[in-house]
C-alpha cells in the first residue's frame, strides 16, 4: 500500500505583535514539526481541542497557508509551491461552516462549475454532464443547481460543499470539522455519505474533529494533537479504549458517556500553556498527574508503543484497564 499523503516535519510559526517599525516582536508556534502519512484509501482522524493547531495543519495541507518548515508529498511527489490551484487537483478541503463556504451571490451551478472550468478546463457541455453525475452521487436533486446557498439547510449545504470538492477530482480530502455545525440526525447522514464516497472513488481522508466519538467512528487511525504536536497516534479501535498518553486518557475520560457517572478528571481549572511563552519540556506536564522532573525539562519524541501505536511520552499509561469498559 502506498502512502497517498506524507508530511515530513511540517510546521507553522506565526509572527505576533508589532514594534513601532512594523517588525514582529514575538513568534507563536501553532504547529510543531509533524511527520505523518496516510495510506491510499484510508482515513486518518485528527482530534484535539481548540487551539491545538488542527485547523492550521489543515490549511497548510491544501496550500491556503505556507508551511514554515517541512514538505508535503502526494503519491510520492513533493508539492513544492503554495499555489492552491496546483494543490486543488490533488487535494481538496471540506469546510466546517457549510453555508459560509458558499458564495451567497452565486448559484449552486456557478459554484460547481468553478473547479471544472478552472482546474480541468472542461467544455460547457462536459461540465453540465459532470455536475449531474456528481449530484447523483451525493444524493442531491438537479433542480438545486439554480438556487442560491441561503435556500439550503446546513446538511444540504454540506453535501453541496462535498460535491464541489468531488468536482475538483482530487483523490485526497481534508475534512475540517465537516459535521460539527450539524445536528446529530443530519450529521449521521453526512458521515455515511462520506464513507460511501470513499469506497466508491477510492478516496483518502484526513478527518479533523474535536468530537472523539465521531472521529473514532469514521477513522482507521487517529492522531491526537495537543498544543501543536502529535502526542499519540494509533489504530482507531484502540486509541481511546486503551490510551497511552495521559492527555489521550484525559480526553477519553472527559467525554460524556451514557452510563458513566459524572466525575471531573481534573478538579482545578487546568489550562493550555501560554503560546507566547511555551514550557521547556512536555506541553502537558503542568496538567499531567504522572509528570516527573524529566517531563518538565525535555520534550518527549514520538516513539513506537506497540500494536501500531506511537506515543510522545516519557511515562505512558500502559495499564490496559480503563473505565471505558462498560
Amino acid at each position: 500500500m502506498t502512502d497517498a499523503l506524507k508530511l515530513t516535519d511540517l510546521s507553522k510559526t506565526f509572527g505576533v505583535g508589532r514594534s513601532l517599525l512594523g517588525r514582529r516582536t514575538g513568534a507563536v508556534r501553532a504547529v510543531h514539526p509533524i511527520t505523518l502519512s496516510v495510506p491510499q484509501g484510508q482515513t486518518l482522524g485528527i482530534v484535539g481541542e481548540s487551539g491545538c493547531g488542527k485547523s492550521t495543519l489543515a490549511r497548510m495541507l491544501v496550500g491556503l497557508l505556507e508551511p514554515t518548515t517541512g514538505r508535503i508529498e502526494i503519491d510520492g511527489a513533493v508539492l513544492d509551491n503554495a499555489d492552491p490551484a496546483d494543490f486543488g487537483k490533488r487535494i481538496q478541503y471540506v469546510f466546517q461552516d457549510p453555508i459560509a463556504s458558499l458564495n451567497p451571490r452565486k448559484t449552486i451551478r456557478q459554484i460547481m462549475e468553478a473547479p471544472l472550468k478552472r482546474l480541468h478546463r472542461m467544455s460547457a457541455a462536459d461540465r453540465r454532464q459532470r455536475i449531474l453525475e456528481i449530484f447523483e452521487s451525493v444524493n442531491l436533486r438537479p433542480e438545486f443547481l439554480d438556487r442560491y446557498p441561503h435556500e439550503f439547510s446546513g446538511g444540504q449545504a454540506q453535501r453541496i460543499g462535498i460535491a464541489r470538492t468531488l468536482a475538483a477530482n482530487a483523490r485526497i480530502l481534508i475534512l475540517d470539522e465537516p459535521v460539527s455545525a450539524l445536528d446529530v440526525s443530519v450529521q449521521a447522514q453526512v458521515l455515511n455519505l462520506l464513507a460511501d464516497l470513499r469506497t466508491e472513488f477510492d478516496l483518502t481522508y484526513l478527518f479533523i474533529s474535536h468530537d472523539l466519538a465521531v472521529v473514532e467512528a469514521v477513522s482507521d487511525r487517529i492522531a491526537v494533537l495537543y498544543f501543536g504536536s502529535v502526542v499519540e497516534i494509533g489504530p482507531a479501535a484502540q486509541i481511546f479504549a486503551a490510551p497511552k498518553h495521559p492527555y489521550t486518557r484525559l480526553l477519553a475520560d472527559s467525554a460524556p458517556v451514557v452510563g458513566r457517572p459524572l466525575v471531573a478528571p481534573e478538579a482545578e481549572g487546568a489550562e493550555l500553556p501560554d503560546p507566547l511563552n511555551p514550557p521547556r519540556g512536555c506541553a502537558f506536564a503542568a496538567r499531567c498527574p504522572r509528570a516527573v522532573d524529566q517531563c518538565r525539562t525535555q520534550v518527549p519524541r514520538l516513539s513506537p508503543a506497540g500494536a501500531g501505536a506511537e506515543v510522545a511520552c516519557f511515562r505512558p499509561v500502559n495499564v490496559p484497564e480503563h473505565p471505558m469498559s462498560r
Partner: protein
Amino acid sequence: MTAFVALLARNRLALAGGVVLVCVVLLALAVPVLPLADPDVTNTAQRFQPPLSPGALLGTDHLGRDLLSRLLWGTRLSLAVGFAAAIAAATIGAAIGIVAGFYGGRTDNIIMRGVDMLMAFPYILLALAIVAALGPGLFNALIAVAAVNVPFFARNIRGITVGIAHKEFVDAARLAGLSNRRIILSEILPNVIPVIVIAMSTTIGWMILETAGLSFLGLGSQPPQADLGSMLGEARSALITNPHTSIVPGVMILIIVMSINLLGDGVRDALDPRLKSGALSRPMAATRVDRAQTPPPPSGAGLLEVAALETQFHVRNRVYRAVGGVDLHVRKGECLGIIGESGSGKSVTALSIMGLVASPPGVITGGAAYYDGHDLIGAPYGRLRDIRGRSVSYIFQDPLSTLHPLYRVGDQLIEAIRAHRPIGRAAGRAKAVELLRAVRIPNPEKRITDFPHEMSGGMRQRVGIAMALANDPDVIIADEPTTALDVTVQAQVLTILDDLRRSRGLAIIFITHDFGVVAQLCDRVGVMYAGRIVEEGLTSDILRAPRHPYTARLMACVPELGAGKRRLEAIPGLPPVVDNLPQGCAFADRCQQVQAACRRAGIPLERHGTHAVRCLYPVPQSQEATP
C-alpha cells in the same frame, strides 16, 4: 433586483424621496427645452423684483436676472457636479479599498497609511488646499470634493473587503483554481457592491452640500455661471433687504438633499440583510405576552412549573411556532434535562419562562410559568425583574458574548447582587471572591479584576455560573452552558454544576443536545421535537428504553465512544420548519412506523406513571433501543 425595488417601494418615506428626486432630476434634464428667460442676462432696472412679479415668477436677483431660470440652471449644475463627484469618489475609493483589503500585508499597509494621512486633515482644509492650487472654478471644486471623499470610501470598503476575503468561500474559490484577479471580480466584488451602493446613496447628498459650500465661498462656479451654492453666496449681501433671493436657492438645496437622504436610507434598509430579517429591532425589557386563553392553573407538581407554554415569532406575515404547548416542572434539588436538535424550541422554552425571548419578534401566545404557584408570564415587569436573577437565574451558552466586554468580572458579579439588594464596596468584593471560589476559580482575589477577554472559555463559564449563584436562587436555567467548551473543560464545568445542585438543593433545568451530558447530570429528561415535548420521563428509563420513535432513532444516530469504526444510523429527511407544521405528528414524514392515523390530528402526550410519550404507536417497552 425586483425584490429590491419592491422592498424600497414599501418604505413610504423612501418612495416619497424617490418621487421628489425623480421630479427634480427630470426638471433639471428638461431645462434647455423649457421656455425660460436667459439666466445670465442682467437688467439692473428690474433688480430685486419680489416673487410673483410679472415676467419673473420667483422674482429677480441683485442684477435683475430671472431667479426661476437661474434656479433651474443652477439645480442642473449642482446635481451634475454632485453625482459626478460621488461616482468618481466611490469608484476610486472602492478600487483602492478592495485592493488594500484583499491583498493585505504590505500593500494594505502602504495604501492605508496614505489614506490615514489624507484623513488627518479636516476635509475642508484639503479641499481648500486643492482649490488653492488649481484655482477657483466649478470643475476644480468637483475634483476637490471627490478627492476628499476618496479616503472615506477607501477605508469603508477596505474594512468590508477584509471581512469577505477571510470568508471560507474565498478559500474555496482559491482551491477551485481561481486567480486573484478572478476572485476579486467574481467573489469579492458582487458582495461589496451593495456596500458601495449604500455608502454612495448616503453620501451623495453630502457631496452636493459640499460643492454648494465651495461655491458659496466663491471657490466653485464663477460668475456669471451659477450653481445653487454660488446663488446663495451672491444673495448673502442682500439677505436682510431681499431675503427671497437667498431663500429660493437654499430651499432647493434642502429639497434635493433631503430627498436624496430619504431615498438613500431606503436603499440602505433594502440592501442590508439584517434589516430584511427584522433583526435590528430593539428587544424589549420582557417578552410580549398576548394570550388568547386563560392558562391552566398550577398543579403544584414542582417549584417551577411550565404549563401549555406557547411562544411564537412573528416575522413579517409569517408565524413561527417555536414552542407549541410545552408542559414541564422541576422540583427542589432536581435536575431536569431538555434535549433536542436546533430549532426544536428548547432554548425558546427556557427563555420564555423569564420573558427573555427577544421581542419583537417573539410573542408568548399561551400558557403559564408558575414559580412557587405564581404565574410569571404576564406578571408586571417590576415583579418579573424582582425574580430574575434572585429566585430564578440563567446560565447561557457562549460565555464570551454573554459577559459584558467592558466591565471587570468582579464588578459584573457585584452588580448581580446590587440589582436585588444594596451591598457595600468591601462586602460586595468579599462576596464576589467567595462566589468565584465556589466555582473553583483558582486565585479568585486576583481574577475578580480580570476582564472577560482575559479569561479562557472555561473560566468565563465559571464566572457565568458564579453570577447565576449570586443571590442564592432556587432555580437555575442553564441553556447549553457547555456547548462552546472543549470536552476536558466541559467535564470540569458539569462537575461544578452537579456539586452545587447537591450542596445547595438547587433545581436545574438543563438544555442540551448531548445525550451523554443528560445521562450524567439529569434526573429526568424531556425530549423536544418541532416545538413540543415528544417524550418525558426518568433519564434512566428513557436511555434504557426510549418509547418515542424519534428518541430511539436520535439516540441511535449518536456515535458512542469506544465502539470503533462503524456505519452510523441516520434519520432521513429534515425536521419540519415551524412556520408550516403538519396537522398530525411532526415526525411522521421521517418515521418508519408511520400510520395514516399519525397524520390525522394532533397527538396528546400520554402519561403512564413517570413516563410520558406523544405517539400513537410507541416503541414496545420490551424492545431495546440500540440495535
